[in-house]
């Protein structure tokens, strides 16, 4: 009895499930920014750990693909490693850490620094797909607000920030308007990354497994971060260069180096850091040691 095998399909998901997700994906692409409900399946990771992204990737990926997985911008964070090895084993795909070599990039919380190109697919893991959720907890209500294109709640929230702090106090998961119509959560990427979504040549797909929603931004589609005329959207910037590769203009992680308040700033995008360092002959955020 205990010898009985539990058998899983190639790519883990069964074909029926893939078709269901694929149909949802096509509608998502046809209605940019609209959250398409889908019958999200369980996958062998816990909910909230990328089950939406995993289902989207599983429905899209084939053996000709080259997959890159990042978490916090890094290829070697444990969850990225775990998801990458999952697909390497169940879908038998090649994997890479190089942004420019990947055909599919599954990400949590970042958009790579290396500009994406046409034909690439960026799959976002999304925890809370509804941008209005923390302003209105009910799905029946938020669905109606989207139908009416009634986004006043969000503008009021941003305005209250300004009144209180003098700034819009939203630094990540900063709401965007897609195609001039749908308010959309970009997932918890830092607002630093928001401008990269606008008219990006890659196809951007979003999967929220626990919340059972899929949405998309087709290539070359307008993605506008909300703002006001007198308080326009301002992405965060870093003044210093990466302490490892010396590059500027990227998103940096602050790393505490001692218990006396010492810290340094290094690239969050490990692939970007490594390649900049290789070009300039310096150290990089992934170091020189091969990943075991």
């Amino acid at each position: 009895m205990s010898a009985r095998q539990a058998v899983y399909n190639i790519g883990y998901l069964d074909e029926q499930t893939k078709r269901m997700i694929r149909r949802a994906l096509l509608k998502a692409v046809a209605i940019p920014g609209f959250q398409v409900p889908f019958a999200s399946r369980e996958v062998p990771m816990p909910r909230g750990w990328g089950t939406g992204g995993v289902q989207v990737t599983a429905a899209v990926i084939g053996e000709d693909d080259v997959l890159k997985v990042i978490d916090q911008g890094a290829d070697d964070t444990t969850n990225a490693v775990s998801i990458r090895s999952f697909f390497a084993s169940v879908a038998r795909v090649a994997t890479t850490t190089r942004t420019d070599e990947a055909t599919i990039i599954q990400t949590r919380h970042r958009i790579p620094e290396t500009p994406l190109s046409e034909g690439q697919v960026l799959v976002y893991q999304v925890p809370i797909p509804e941008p209005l959720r923390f302003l209105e907890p009910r799905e029946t209500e938020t669905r109606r607000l989207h139908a009416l294109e009634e986004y006043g709640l969000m503008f009021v929230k941003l305005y209250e920030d300004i009144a209180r702090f003098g700034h819009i106090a939203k630094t990540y998961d900063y709401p965007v308007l897609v195609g001039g119509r749908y308010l959309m959560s970009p997932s918890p990427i830092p607002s630093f990354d928001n401008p990269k979504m606008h008219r990006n040549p890659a196809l951007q797909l979003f999967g929220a497994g626990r919340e059972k929603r899929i949405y998309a931004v087709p290539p070359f589609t307008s993605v506008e971060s909300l703002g006001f005329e007198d308080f326009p959207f301002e992405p965060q910037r870093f003044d210093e260069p990466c302490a490892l590769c010396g590059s500027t203009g990227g998103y940096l992680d602050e790393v505490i180096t001692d218990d006396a308040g010492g810290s340094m700033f290094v690239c969050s995008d490990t692939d970007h850091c490594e390649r900049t360092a290789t070009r300039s002959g310096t150290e990089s955020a992934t170091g020189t040691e091969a990943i075991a």
Partner: protein
Amino acid sequence: MYVAVKGGERAIANAHALLAEQGRGHPELPAIDPAQVEGQLGVLVSRVMTEGSLYDPALAARAVLQAQGDVLEAVTLMRSYRTTLPRFGYTCAVDTAGLAPQRRISATFKDLPGGQQLGATFDYTHRLFSTPSSGADVPDRHDGSPDADDPAMPRVADLLGVGALIEPDARPGQDAAEPGDLTREPSVFPMSRAERLQALARSDEGFLLGLAYSSQRGFGTTHPFAGEVRVGEVEVEFDAPELGFAVPLGRIEVTECQMVNQFTGSAETPAQFTRGYGLAFGRSERKAMSMSIVDRALRGAEFDERVASPVQDEEFVISHGDNVAATGFVEHLKLPHYVDFQAELMLVRKLNAEFEEAHA
């Protein structure tokens, strides 16, 4: 020279090895056989099957072992296997009135056709530690288990239904269509009662217990009476259209609870008790009872009741009852969030600098 954290792969491999080692326990003691879990931890296996939405005691026992006793981990294992299985169709509705109960109790009548049957229950046991078992300490029974000659045991709800004192199983037009399936169709609110019941059957036992308890304490009162709780095996049949008759697939053990609740009625309509329903795999009495209370509480709008408490709120209950979702999302906070935290850190520093400048 600082080198950022790396070697995720090695870390994961090591963690898995360590986990396996801990799960094995003392290497000189025998490993637990899944069949032992299935036989001796039947209540746990029932819960894993119910919340895992898959009736397979042997597999559930393996899940319990592989999860080292973590129920939600075992449920997740079951679910993520179940979801890949092909679907052949719907079985016929199981006939719980025809179920030969190993346990059947009603709190609403002293005696009733078929009688009260205590069965295997922890009720009335004294919760005192017994002496460590030598393996052969099952006490003798004084009389036999119910046999085939037992009189029929009609469901209490059907007995009350005869006099139209209780609402019927299905109201005209209510969910007349094929029931939805949350695991196959996207779920959107508001849900049909059938979809709600499916969600409740998969919901976390502890979550439903807490909600049911809250309604007993005044947050969405429904005045429940345990009309009937029955545990036993039912035949599952599959209606094969090409054959023209139902094919028996096998028997499964279930626990069913019919909760009889406060009555409705007005000058225009006669008074009738309402009900809540609970059904779970195996021996899952607490789950079935909690489920039936929550089911009834969620029908507030149907009976024009004031809806003000969490247990009556469909979106609240259904969205948060799934423990696979809940545990995953709570525990995902363990994943790195340093990119977003960095963004917040920068904003707080900026706000602080501006504050100090303004108050200098």
